[in-house]
């Protein structure tokens, strides 16, 4: 079985982002997607701290600490980019203006519930940032995560056990093993990695999967 690397997974997500899309990439793994967007497509990257038209990281020594992304790392602007204040930025996120957001997750349920902000451990300091706003506000919510925890537990579950970020908000799940759509008909596996059978994928997934008619293997 050829599990996707983090970069292969990012490249797979990037393939599904079309020309002209307004996109927010969450912190952590989703940020990697930016490195794999095809250069011949004009895609508008939004950052919650008031940027549309975010570009890649600057060359060393060229950092400007008033120009950072949601993860507070230095970025650049593309020609044609714009700045705006926080209420406008979250109107973009909450008002249905973004075509796609890509988020990391602890768990996604069969019904598209998302848990990605808090482990719920009593000693944990909770932090939510803009995750709940993106979950309800983007037209399509892509989740990008490892299929299983390090302990081998499925992160796709019948019902989330971690505190929720949003209800029924996830459109599509990209993991290192498969691409799975969340539909009114349940979870539909669209593709899975070479050397893994559909039955093996189901065995690694703690929620029922249906097989999309048109695909097998990727």
């Amino acid at each position, binding site marked *: 079985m050829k599990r996707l690397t983090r970069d292969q997974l990012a490249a797979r997500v990037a393939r599904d982002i079309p020309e002209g899309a307004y996109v927010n990439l969450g912190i952590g793994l989703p940020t990697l997607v930016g490195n794999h967007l095809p250069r011949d497509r004009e895609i508008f990257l939004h950052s919650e701290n008031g940027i549309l038209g975010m570009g890649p990281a600057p060359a060393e020594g060229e950092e400007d600490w008033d120009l950072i992304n949601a*993860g507070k790392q230095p970025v650049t602007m593309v020609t044609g980019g714009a700045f705006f204040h926080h209420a406008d930025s*979250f109107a973009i996120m909450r008002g249905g203006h973004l075509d796609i957001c890509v988020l990391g997750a602890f768990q996604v349920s069969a019904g598209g519930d998302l848990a990605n902000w808090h482990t719920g451990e009593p000693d944990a300091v909770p932090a939510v940032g803009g995750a709940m706003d993106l979950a309800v506000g983007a037209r399509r919510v892509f989740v990008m995560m490892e299929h299983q925890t390090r302990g081998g537990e499925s992160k796709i579950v019948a019902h989330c056990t971690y505190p929720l970020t949003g209800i029924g908000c996830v459109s599509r799940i990209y993991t290192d093993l498969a691409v799975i759509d969340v539909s009114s008909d349940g979870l539909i596996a669209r593709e899975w990695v070479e050397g893994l059978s559909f039955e093996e994928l189901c065995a690694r997934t703690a929620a029922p999967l249906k097989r999309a008619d048109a695909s097998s293997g990727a």
Partner: protein
Amino acid sequence: MIDKTLASPLEALAGLADGSTVMISGFGGSGQPNALIEALIETGARELTIVNNNAGNGETGIAALLKAGQVRKVVCSFPRQVDSHVFQGLFRAGRVELELVPQGNLAERIRAAGAGIGAFFTPTAYGTPLAEGKETRSINGRMYVLEYPIHADLALIKALQGDRWGNLVYRKAARNFGPVMATAAKKTVVQVDRIVPLDELDPEAIVTPGIFVTHLVEVGDTVLRGPQPKPPAAAGSA
């Protein structure tokens, strides 16, 4: 002649009462008014409620204010950064209260305060622990949560340039919470890199009109370029 400029940050904060609610602009370090935060520490005001996106990092700024024991409560969206150990220590010890607010609710609740809105319904956080106990309503088949405005006694803002009437322009993404916080407080104090003559700012480009500004103080160039000694790490931030 109207002149809202003052010579020192401390002068601008004169008369701040214990128990005040203070909004502080910034997203991490970007847009954070460090000179005003230092003056806030110097006032010695206690039992403060601080409204900011984060809860301080390192040992300076909001972290220093927390360490000085002047803060009773923090209202923020993301208090968990790699170097936010001062807040985390106080929080775990039960010495500071946290109201965790989704970032969009934080921005919109502040905007609502400035715009005279009594409350609003938003789908953000519906069905999650952050909406527990709050009023909900179904509107056109979708579930919403009732959220109330956040008003402040004082807003501390960072801008790039301002004139004596208080008109402001910002620099890049350091704008973030500044323009909305400026509208939501009884008193708004701004630190600017440079105070410019009245005719210098283009009226088409002014972001915050002077009506929202009480005082402004010139602090000199604060632009930070190049690699930082310890850049905020990728993990844990928003």
